């Protein structure tokens, strides 16, 4: 069913003892999209991904992945790159990739074609018969990535795929991930890197203390958090501006103040223009990083 979401969670809760790692989380990941999970450490991202993979069972709620509800039936169609990565050090690259592909039920010949293509693309062909222990950390991460996608999955879940990579390899990985979407796969990635999330993701979900605090397209999120933030400079006392009803200070930039207002910017401008001498007025579109900081606040 193409219109069905790739992933649907409904009121999913997962606790470890008294600690609630995921609290009544609901989300839908549209097929063919790149869906970003963002949030500070301990916000519940990895637990959510493990619940999606049925590695952890939820205490409550519904988990539906690729149309299969509450079972691991779809796992063969999912490529999963966990945050804690590891490879068998004594295996060769080829053995490693063939093993992971076989565990996904991919025939050897099919896996070999896909493997060779990805190794060539990530410039690792000459390392195919080397033992994993002979590879550099960056190479190992690329091998781990290939092992995730060698089965040509419909859904790819990547937990912090850019962690530990140098800038060159970040670009290589970014390009590889985007090509997965071009080939029809749905990609879910969790990341701390707000710039990457804002550049790559069609949808972003932000978690904080186990709860969903943001969910939607980047544009809709920015619109929600951007239209009420302005940068303004006035002649005279700044305190008069901040004493205005419905105004709160976001950042003091010196001559310019970044403030949050409750009404529409045009209405606000109209209301204050007769009362003070405005020298600068700018509607600010906050970055994802700004929104992230604003929501997570001091917890980050």
């Amino acid at each position, binding site marked *: 069913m193409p219109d069905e979401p790739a992933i649907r969670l409904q009121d999913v809760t997962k606790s470890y003892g008294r600690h609630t790692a995921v609290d009544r989380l609901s989300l839908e990941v549209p097929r063919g999209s790149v869906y970003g999970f963002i949030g500070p450490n301990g916000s519940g991202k990895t637990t959510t991904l493990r619940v999606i993979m049925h590695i952890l069972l939820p205490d409550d709620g519904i988990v539906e992945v690729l149309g299969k509800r509450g079972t691991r039936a779809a796992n063969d169609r999912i490529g999963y790159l966990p945050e804690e990565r*590891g490879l068998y050090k*004594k295996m060769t690259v080829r053995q490693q990739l063939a093993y992971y592909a076989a*565990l996904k039920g991919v025939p050897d010949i099919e896996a070999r074609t896909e493997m060779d293509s990805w190794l060539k693309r990530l410039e690792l062909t000459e390392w195919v018969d080397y033992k994993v222990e002979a590879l550099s950390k960056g190479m190992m991460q690329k091998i781990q990535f290939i092992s995730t996608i060698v089965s040509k999955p419909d859904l790819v879940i990547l937990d912090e795929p850019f962690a530990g990579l140098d800038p060159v390899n970040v670009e290589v990985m970014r390009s590889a991930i985007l090509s997965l979407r071009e080939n029809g796969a749905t990609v879910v990635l969790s990341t701390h890197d707000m710039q990457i999330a804002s550049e790559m993701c069609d949808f972003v979900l932000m978690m904080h203390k186990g709860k969903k605090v943001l969910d939607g397209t980047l544009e809709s999120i920015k619109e929600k958090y951007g239209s009420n933030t302005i940068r303004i400079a006035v002649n005279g006392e700044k305190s008069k501006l901040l004493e205005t009803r419905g105004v709160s200070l976001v950042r003091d930039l010196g001559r310019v103040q970044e403030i949050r207002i409750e009404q529409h910017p045009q209405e606000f401008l109209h209301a204050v223009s007769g009362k003070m001498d405005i020298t600068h007025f700018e509607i600010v579109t906050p970055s994802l990083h700004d929104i992230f900081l604003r929501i997570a606040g001091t917890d980050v």
Partner: protein
Amino acid sequence: MFKKVWTIAKVEWRSTVLAKGFILAVFLTPIFIGGSAVVQHSIKERVDTVDRTLAVVDADGKIFPLLKAAAQERNTKDIFIDVGGSKRQNGPRFVLHRVQHAPQKDIPLELSNRVRAGDIFAYIIVDPGTAAGLDGKRVTYHTQTHTYTELPRWLHEALTGITRKLHLEGTSLDPSVAEKLLEPTPLKWRSLVTVDENGNRIPPGKINLAATFGVPAVAMLLLFVIVFMSVPMLLHSVIEEKQQRIWEVLVSSVSPFELLFGKLLGAVMVSMMLSMLYLGGTILFAETMGVSDEIPGSLYAWFLVFQLLALLIYGSMFSAIGAACSELRDAQSLMVPAMFVIIVPMFGWVAILRAPSSPFAVALSLFPPATPMLMLLRMALPPGPQPWELALAIVLTSIFTLACVWAAGKIFRLGILAQGQTPTLRRLISWVLAK
């Protein structure tokens, strides 16, 4: 599902059998076992020929001359063997000398000091009246090397003969008749009478005592070696996967139960390969030594059955412990209770060897963790277990095996996800009981 289990099993098998340590162990184990047999044999050949000097305190003076004569006879006849036409000394001489009874001296202390100084090996004190057969009179033997039993054993036999002879001299019995009366009756060990398939009576044959005791002991030892060469790899492989963070990738593709079954199957494959090697070697050795008739063919089949059960029982335990631990040192504390179960057969096997059908032997061989080793031991020992005992053992052990695999699966499911927690027995039990 089975395809994935099979994939895991193949990888486990290959990673084990291609490991240098394993290949070395496969070839070194029989060399060590064979080597220790050779060393023991060669030690046996290097006989002890150091004289043992015995001081005798014999107040009556009647026993010492006869005892000395008996020692001289032994020293000239019994301690020599014929090797290629020439005589070779095959044991120590017992050199006796009499210590005069001197009431004014503390003879026992003086002799004890001489023993300590290495001047004499031992001394005996013959109570006055012993030769006359007075009630309560005896001979006491003193040494500091109580582990050496050859001298006291010979003394016991010689003194018995001497005192009997002295006592008989005081009676009217003809010495030759008396000697005939006291002569021990020979006892020969023979097998039972059997009937072949044509109804022909097969007369009893000679008993090969070495094979009678050796076959069961070797069968059990071989099972122990094969099982414990195979199952520790499960512990190491699971801990390695946890340490190297591979487990999460694996359980995203297969369920923890599939992963456990794959690993167990891999261990079974490794151990079956070892069986082929070692049982093949055993058959060849038995043929070469001409003792193949002493090993019933069915024993090989039962060996494989009990091997499978033992592997699943101990393999489950080791896997579960591996899954619960993040590091090998954590596993050591959990291995203690597991080792108690594993060494149960070692507590009872000697007693079972002596009395294979005793209630103790039956009860212990029906205790499931010990059944594979001990029931195999009993099967190799005539008369073997009753059919009902064997059937009950298989049923109980199969149920226990399933319970072990099930419990290991439960521990595996939760344990494989646990990181950085020190495992305890209580936690393992809570994981088993978790829904």
